[in-house]
C-alpha cells in the first residue's frame, strides 16, 4: 500500500516538467532576445509594410533624446561621428508622438552630412 502511494505522487511532477519544458521551448523558439531598448518609447504602429527588418536603429524619444544601443547621445553630430559610413541605410526609430517636422529636420541634417538612404522603423501592428 505504501509503495502505491509513492508511485502516484511522482506522476504530476513529471507532467509538470513536460509542460514547463514545452513552455520553455516555445519561448526559446518564438521570442527573440532584444538589445536593451530605451524605456518609455512607444513605437510607431503600421500595417501592410514588408516584414521584417533588423531592429538595430537610432531611437528618438518623444522629447527628442537620441539613444543608440542603450547609450544616450548628446547630439546628432555625435551619431554622425560614430557612424563609420553614411552610405548604408540609416535606421531611425522615433517615438510615435515625436513631432514630424522635428524628425524631418533631423533627416535633413543627416542628408546634409551625406546620408543617402534613411528609413523609419515601425512596429508590426496586430
Amino acid at each position: 500500500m505504501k509503495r502505491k502511494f509513492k508511485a502516484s505522487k511522482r506522476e504530476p511532477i513529471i507532467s509538470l516538467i513536460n509542460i514547463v519544458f514545452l513552455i520553455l521551448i516555445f519561448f526559446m523558439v518564438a521570442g527573440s532576445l532584444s538589445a536593451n531598448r530605451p524605456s518609455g518609447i512607444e513605437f510607431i504602429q503600421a500595417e501592410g509594410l514588408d516584414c521584417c527588418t533588423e531592429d538595430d536603429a537610432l531611437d528618438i524619444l518623444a522629447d527628442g533624446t537620441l539613444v543608440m544601443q542603450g547609450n544616450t547621445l548628446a547630439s546628432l553630430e555625435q551619431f554622425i561621428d560614430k557612424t563609420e559610413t553614411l552610405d548604408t541605410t540609416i535606421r531611425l526609430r522615433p517615438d510615435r508622438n515625436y513631432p514630424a517636422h522635428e524628425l524631418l529636420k533631423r533627416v535633413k541634417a543627416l542628408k546634409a552630412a551625406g546620408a543617402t538612404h534613411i528609413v523609419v522603423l515601425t512596429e508590426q501592428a496586430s
Partner: protein
Amino acid sequence: MSLRRVRQRRRASITSLIDVIFLLLLFFMLASTFSKFSEIDIAVANGSSPGVGDTDTATLSIQADRTYCNETETIDADLVSRLQDLTVAGTNGVLISVSDDVSTQRLVDVLSLVKQVPTLTIQIEEPS
C-alpha cells in the same frame, strides 16, 4: 543498502532539474520580445522644394486631424482612390508637407497609404 542509496540520488536530481528549467523559463520569458519591425523610406526633397509648380505633381498637406490633397480636404479612407484617379490623369509624383502639430505616427500612416499607389514618387517638403 546500495539499492536504496541509488534511489535517493535519482529523486534529488529531478528536483534540481526542475529548478534549472524554471530558471531558464523565467529568463526567456523576461528577456524575449515578440515585436517585429518594418521600415518605410523617408525622402526629404532637396533644395527649395522642386516640383511645386509642376502640373504632374500632386501636393498633399498633412495636418493633425485632416489631409488636403491638391487643396481639397480628403479623408484617409478616400486618399488611395483619389491618388489613383490622379495617376490616371497623369500625375506621377506627390509632394508632402506637414504642419507643426503632426506626430510621426500620423506622417507614417499617410505615407503607408500613399505607398499603396506604387507609380507615385514620394517627396517630403523639408521643414523651414
